[in-house]
């Protein structure tokens, strides 16, 4: 990860702060994050980009939790096999979580790391927040 490179390269670890994007419960209990742009990121990344990332994340989570023929089928099949089927295959939710992990890694590499930011996968924070770590940007010299 870009983060570890920068940590190793620099003499001192960069001062960083963290911004937390909280959950948006206006649609119920489904996993959805607020798309409101945090002010701390104002100088680092543009609003559009950030909102796009969060929106894609929200869509992915919605896909994971979607109720439909496929998920019902999986549920029924699992019940019939006394849930032993999950020894062999992943649940749909887990598959989507992997997809999300790849997406975040991708976003970090392409967009966030070059700007001195790091997205943490929400699953590592119990799906409570999207944690964005802001690293001190030495080139600009802005202290934080």
């Amino acid at each position: 990860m870009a983060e570890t490179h920068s940590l190793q390269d620099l003499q001192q670890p960069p001062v960083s702060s963290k911004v937390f994007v909280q959950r948006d419960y206006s649609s119920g209990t489904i996993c959805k994050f607020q798309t409101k742009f945090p002010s701390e990121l104002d100088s680092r990344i543009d609003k559009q980009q950030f909102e796009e990332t969060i929106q894609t994340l929200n869509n992915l989570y919605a896909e994971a939790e979607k109720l439909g023929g496929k998920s019902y089928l999986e549920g029924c099949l699992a019940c019939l096999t006394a849930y032993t089927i999950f020894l062999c295959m992943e649940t749909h939710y887990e598959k989507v979580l992997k997809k999300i992990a790849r997406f975040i890694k991708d976003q970090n590499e392409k967009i966030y790391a070059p700007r001195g930011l790091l997205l943490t996968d929400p699953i590592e924070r119990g799906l409570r927040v999207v944690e964005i770590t802001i690293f001190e940007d030495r080139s600009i010299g802005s202290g934080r």
Partner: protein
Amino acid sequence: MAKQTGVFYLTLVLILVTCGLFFVFDCQFLALQLTPIIPVIGGVLFLFVLGTLLRTSFSDPGVLPRATPDEAADLERQIDVANGSTGYRPPPRTKEVVINGQTVKLKYCFTCKIFRPPRASHCSLCDNCVERFDHHCPWVGNCVGRRNYRFFYMFILSLSFLTIFIFAFVITHIILRSHQSGFLTALKDSPASVLEVVVCFFSVWSIVGLSGFHTYLISSNQTTNEDIKGSWSSKRGKDNYNPYSYGNIFTNCCAALCGPIPPSLIDRRGFIQPDAPQLTPPTNGITMYGSTQSQQSHMCDQDQCIQSTKFVLQAAATPLLQQQSSEPVIMTACPENGAPLPGRASLSLGGPCTSLPLGQPTPPTSTPSLSCHEADMLPIHGHSHTHTHSHNHIHPLQEQVAHHHYLTPEEVPSPPGMLHCGSPMGHSHAVQASFYNPASQDSLHEDSVRGLVKLSSV
């Protein structure tokens, strides 16, 4: 832990013994006289019941991991900004959100340092916030929440069938035998049948009733918590409706029983080793004393927690009983609150001192006779004899959900598990100060504790 899973072992024993007796004593006769399919069906039902029971007990109900220190600090900052930093006693923290046209209040959990998602609740026995919290079932020894509700439902459903099945066939057995050799002789020949009939007779009413109740809950997409509180009942207001219901019974049932099961959040956290020093949280199930991060330094062996809790309770209880005062204040007091609570200082417990087993509400007097509810009374009383009547005081103060019992009051976080077990809990300030240090470094803790004091004195 042993105390809390006591009833679970009772459940296991009851099921195993009753079924065992059935297979040994009754099945031979029935298989010969009627059909050998009877033991087969009985066996299948028995295995299904056992499977779902174990699955319910040992799976993560949907525990929400506690917030990392950074998150908690960030939230605190936001709240302070919103409230204008009133200083010593911040108001109770709630957020309102509109879901599907209904205004829902999100409460802040002082133990987990998060705003609870809608439908989540903090279980004081498990000392965790649980998503879509239904209730804590002592018979199963676990909370029933989002991830294991369907297993619980299948358990009680299959258990109803099994109970009715055994009841019916034992009666049949006795009747058939009586035709052959007279009633009393029949009873003498098969004494186990009497025991089975008795057990099944009493179980049938409660289990079948419970199954019916949960069928209703599933079809209306409510949790036991919400139903008992009457959150979505039309009695509260004309426009009050359940925002989570999908509208029709079929969808509600499918969603509850066949919908996707999210992976366990606490398992996942076992893989992380990022900034804060953490222990790998326990994966799954009954180890409910939580899988947390910031509290790791306070985490301890569960038995130790219980022992030290008992010690603390005994220590705290005597003066409490004598004083008859506003116990809530005591319960939540922490050493540094010595100022507002001078008389209580010697009783305060230190550490994550929000943690007294307050979570166990007064057993309701007017509940439906559901087995889980009834059974609740046993562990409640078992836990804190000294506290039962103090609960009576607390409840009206804290929530009007006095009929709430296991459906833990959200305002009161952590139970025994949270207590710092390492040091002898206790009486002296010095002791408290010594292990309060980890927490005192966290200024948030102070604030949240003060908040608690305020909350409970409301």
